């Protein structure tokens, strides 16, 4: 038994534990390796036209996914040198744009992502680009971890209209309680799920900090919700 523990520890020591250049490289390995395999399949044998289109589409989507990550990493590295203006925006419209942007990737994996908020008259104070990137990050994470059932994006007023919570609900493995606690904390290593490097969540938290928002996660019996809480616009409060 002790021998087994030692084997486990030796292997787990190879897992990156904090966001770093190594972690970023590790995160990019998966999509790049997949693109390479897909391209090798195109090269190595004659394939039907239908399969050719399918593989080409997968190369496109996987490349876009990797590029989103590289853009997030570079943007995240320059956050302190930049000023991010906050503007009143309708989070429902932004959420719908994110859902529409992610739909092809979800469809290619045989999955669905939907917007389910009922409220229409929300006005948040946020940086549009950063909020969009946070939501794309959550949606990308949810695709990887979701099982059956659509991923749901929701937006709702909280605390009597003090802030708006936008959540992305998946149906993957539940979050361990320690990791749930760590999602919004700056001083600790952040992991979204045990096998994840946590880079995506780390970047999302940086983007949230830059516009005075907070992120967090709620564990469910059959999955998790990653959310961002953003302030409401005073224009809404005056209504």
């Amino acid at each position, binding site marked *: 038994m002790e021998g087994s523990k030692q084997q486990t520890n030796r292997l787990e020591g190879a897992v990156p534990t904090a966001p770093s250049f190594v972690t970023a490289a590790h995160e990019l390995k998966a999509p790049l390796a997949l693109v390479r*395999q897909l391209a090798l399949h195109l090269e190595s044998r004659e394939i039907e036209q239908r399969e050719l289109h399918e593989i080409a589409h997968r190369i496109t989507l996987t490349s876009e996914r990797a590029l989103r990550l590289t853009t997030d990493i570079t943007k995240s590295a320059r956050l302190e040198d930049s000023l991010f203006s906050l503007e009143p925006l309708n989070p429902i419209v932004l959420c719908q744009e994110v859902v529409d942007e992610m739909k092809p990737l979800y469809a290619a994996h045989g999955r669905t992502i939907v917007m389910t908020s009922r409220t229409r008259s929300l006005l948040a104070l946020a940086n549009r680009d950063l909020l969009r990137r946070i939501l794309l990050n959550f949606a990308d994470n949810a695709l990887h971890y979701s099982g059956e059932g659509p991923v749901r994006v929701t937006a709702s007023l909280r605390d009597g209209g003090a802030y708006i919570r936008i959540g992305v609900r998946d149906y993957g493995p539940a979050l361990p309680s320690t990791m749930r606690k760590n999602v919004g904390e700056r001083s600790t290593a952040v992991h979204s799920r045990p096998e994840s490097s946590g880079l995506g969540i780390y970047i999302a938290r940086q983007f949230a900090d830059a516009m005075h928002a907070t992120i967090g996660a709620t564990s469910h019996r059959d999955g998790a919700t990653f959310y961002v809480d953003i302030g409401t616009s005073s224009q809404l409060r005056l209504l």
Partner: protein
Amino acid sequence: MDTPHVLIIEDDQWFSSLMKKTLEREKFGVTTASNTIEGMDEINARVPDVIILDFFMPGPNALVLLHELQSYSDTANTPVVLCTNSAADIPKDALSAYGITSVLDKTTMHPDDIVAAVRRVL
């Protein structure tokens, strides 16, 4: 001899699909699972001749499955091909304790390498 049966446990649906197609073209029987728990269910239903196993997946990682395999006499000797992006980071001597003799690096492998690896361990 019956067609050798391969179980692919891989969370990347598209990577899994590529390996499945390659192996089926070589007349292997193939089933897939997208995480360790699903993999255990598949093994409970039918012990495969070879398991192709990713390392990091949603839920328990590969080590949990390897512990389980070693815990039962009917699966303790089932050959496992580890297929991972982290091949270079995993100590080979630690893997050999689990009976793993074949490790494929997803970042450098050729699609047909999976066929050669399966034939090697059968």
